[in-house]
């Protein structure tokens, strides 16, 4: 039995070495030495099982330790499965063991969750899911083990990308815990947070009840780690709406004042189920202060991104490089002061940091696009970012597009993203789909306007629009002013005469819906001195995204305003803004409108000035 201690010693030493390997970079020699120790730990445990006469309790300890090593350090999942299954048999046939049920459930946890999740195929998950439901049948629905395995069922569905089912199961589970286990706030909070996180990942709208549950989580009940997660989710909800995030940032600030140190010390979170079983949660985002700060800054950058139309005066231009530099630093120092951990744990954490680096690059390129400079995308190392990358490529390809051939190329690129989005392996998020569809729609509608393939174009526009409307209904994007307003604008300019040569067919009802929206957004955001800003306009306030402001004010000025003086003021502002940013085609159209307004209001100086500017734009466009 002393040899069990030896196995533990090998494992511990290996983890200590892992830390050194992180600091200095791992060489092939050190990798081999690391796994030599792991192999010794495994062989010692295996030999103990084979040669020793282990009591059932001892067998449990040896087997679980062995399983953890095999699952985390090796690809030999079959082997782990064999040991665990035979231990389970032994437990079932031995009734004397006090913690019999608990011990059996620990085995089930490994067999139904840890191992299937690590096999990268649906087949094993399906079998595990069946096993999980069979197990649930036999458990008391009020017990906390029931809720643990209910959670596992949801996790398996998630792994198989059955999102809707997983969402439903988690939602149900939240209610179950609330009813039977209300005192266990940490487990309740964990499931609720996972549920909300999943809903947000899918951009599924949250019910008011869910939002209330989220808001009701208290830091002193659930601990700072889970509370940070809650703060992040509430921040995301605001960012998703393109709303002001000052309040959320203040909440973080207040929180940091009291809990900063606690986040520095803990790198895992433990949820106790009973005397025998507790669950350890490791989640980078919530456990370390330095990671929390870094992710927070990334989220802030993304929130400020749409505002970006001045390279010197936007937060994102400052924050994104900072996040990138900090992340590089964190990768180097991630093991500092942490508990010794398996090499594969650090590998996973590095992968997470690499994701952050990818998002930094992605949003930096997006920012360049907003600022009107051309970008060059690179194929990311990780194929999971394929969709984001291709989206950037397609959008980049549309910029400055002027001929028919280019248009069909560009449509094809968007279609490729959408088509990949349908394959199960990499499904495009709904928001990406809508972006593709809307851009495709404007390209198609403008082809119709220019008399290119009119009949076919009209049909296609109708189809795209139906898809956009359907996706918007399914997502929380309906509640986002920027998106909602954009859709109204795109609809109006493709269905009304002064904005297109060939208006698409429409009903009166549609017309009044979109015109109403335009009215509301325009009155809350018009670019004239704010004295006549409508009261209660806050509901329709938009972020200062440049293109949107120009389009909205152009439409408002043309359709809604009646006073020449005011109209000219608006057209002057629109023209100035458009010219400042590489949007030649838009500048030209807006400029023509401004020229007309100046002529009408008899401003000869302005007329001369605007004509000269327009001539310059024409020269540029013909070049």
């Amino acid at each position, binding site marked *: 039995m002393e040899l069990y201690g030896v196995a533990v010693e090998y494992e511990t030493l290996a983890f200590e070495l892992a830390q050194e390997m992180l600091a200095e970079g791992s060489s092939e020699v050190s990798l081999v030495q690391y796994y030599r120790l792991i192999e010794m730990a495994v062989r010692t445990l295996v030999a103990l099982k084979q040669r020793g006469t282990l009591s059932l309790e001892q067998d449990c300890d040896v087997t679980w330790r062995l399983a953890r090593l095999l699952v985390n350090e090796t690809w030999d999942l079959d082997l782990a499965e064999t040991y665990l299954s035979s231990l389970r048999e032994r437990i079932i046939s031995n009734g004397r063991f006090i913690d019999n049920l608990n011990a059996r459930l620990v085995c089930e946890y490994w067999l139904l969750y840890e191992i299937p999740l690590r096999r990268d195929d649906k087949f094993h998950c399906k079998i595990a899911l069946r096993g999980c439901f069979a197990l649930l049948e036999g458990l008391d629905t009020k017990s906390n083990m029931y809720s643990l395995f209910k959670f596992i069922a949801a996790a398996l569905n998630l792994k198989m990308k059955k999102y809707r089912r997983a969402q439903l199961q988690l939602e149900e589970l939240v209610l179950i815990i609330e009813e039977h286990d209300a005192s266990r706030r940490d487990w309740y909070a964990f499931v609720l947070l996972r549920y909300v996180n999943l809903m947000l*990942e899918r951009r599924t709208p949250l019910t008011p009840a869910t939002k209330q549950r989220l808001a009701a989580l208290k830091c002193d009940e659930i601990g700072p780690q889970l509370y940070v997660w809650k703060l992040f989710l509430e921040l995301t909800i605001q960012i998703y709406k393109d709303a002001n995030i000052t309040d959320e940032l203040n909440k973080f600030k207040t929180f940091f004042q009291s809990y900063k140190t606690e986040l520095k010390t803990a790198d895992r979170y433990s949820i106790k189920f009973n005397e*025998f079983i507790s669950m350890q949660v490791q989640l*980078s985002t919530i456990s370390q202060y330095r990671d929390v700060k870094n992710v927070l800054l990334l989220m802030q950058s993304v929130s400020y991104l*749409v505002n970006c139309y001045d390279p010197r005066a936007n937060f994102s231009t400052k924050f994104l490089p900072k996040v990138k530099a900090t992340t590089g630093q964190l990768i180097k120092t991630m093991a500092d002061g942490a508990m010794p951990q398996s090499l*594969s744990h650090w590998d996973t954490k590095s992968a997470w940091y690499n994701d952050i680096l990818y998002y930094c690059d992605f949003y930096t390129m997006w920012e360049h696009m907003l600022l009107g400079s051309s970008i060059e995308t690179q194929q990311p190392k990780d194929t999971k970012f394929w969709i984001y990358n291709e989206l950037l490529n397609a959008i980049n390809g549309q910029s400055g597009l002027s001929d028919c051939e280019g248009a069909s190329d560009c449509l094809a690129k968007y279609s490729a993203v959408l088509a990949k989005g349908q394959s199960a392996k990499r499904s495009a998020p709904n928001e990406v789909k809508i972006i593709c569809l809307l851009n495709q729609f404007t390209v198609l509608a403008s082809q119709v306007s220019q008399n290119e393939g009119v009949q076919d174009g009209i049909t296609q526009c109708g189809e795209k629009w139906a898809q956009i409307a359907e996706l918007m209904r399914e997502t929380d994007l309906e509640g986002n002013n920027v998106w909602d307003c954009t859709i109204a604008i795109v609809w109006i300019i493709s269905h009304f005469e002064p904005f297109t040569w060939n208006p698409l067919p429409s009903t009166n009802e549609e017309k009044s819906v979109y015109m109403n929206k335009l009215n509301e957004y325009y009155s809350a955001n018009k670019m004239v001195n704010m004295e006549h800003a409508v009261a209660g306009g806050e509901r329709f306030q938009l972020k200062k995204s440049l293109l949107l402001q120009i389009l909205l004010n152009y439409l408002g000025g043309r359709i809604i305003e009646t006073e020449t003086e005011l109209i000219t003021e608006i057209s002057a502002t629109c023209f100035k803004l458009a010219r400042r940013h590489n949007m030649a085609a838009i500048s030209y159209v807006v400029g023509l409108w401004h020229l007309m307004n100046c002529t009408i209001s008899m401003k000869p100086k302005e007329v001369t000035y605007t004509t000269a500017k327009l001539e310059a734009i024409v020269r540029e466009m013909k070049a």
Partner: protein
Amino acid sequence: MSNYPGEHDNIPKRILDSLQGQPLNHLVPKCGLTSLLSSSVSLSLVTPNTSLALDPENNLNKSPKKLDDHHLRSFYASDSHDLDDHLQLSFKRPKNLGSRADNDDFADKIQEKLSPLAKRCINIADPSVKSSHIITELRETRHQR
């Protein structure tokens, strides 16, 4: 406006036409951020050591057998039946960690840090881990061995 700049040129004159070459780039995809929040989550069940005899600090064994080399040799002897002919694991090769050239003395370091018993065990069992056993992906290795 009898004539105006660009009147006879083939450039977009209506706002919809000008959007053909102007993507709606203020619509920014963001759901990756929430994936980032949860993607690193890992769970593990922990149980207290139920069997005190296994507690390395705690020698409950009635009479700890003297573990001589002969004993250890037979303990590690490779006659196990549920692992093919000998224990040959395939280990996970890190995909995201930095690497550097071989210039280290890790083997010595290990020898220094191990307890006498652990040192004897590793010398007797002498596990032969090779680079080729450390692989990046799960594959059907069982049949190939």
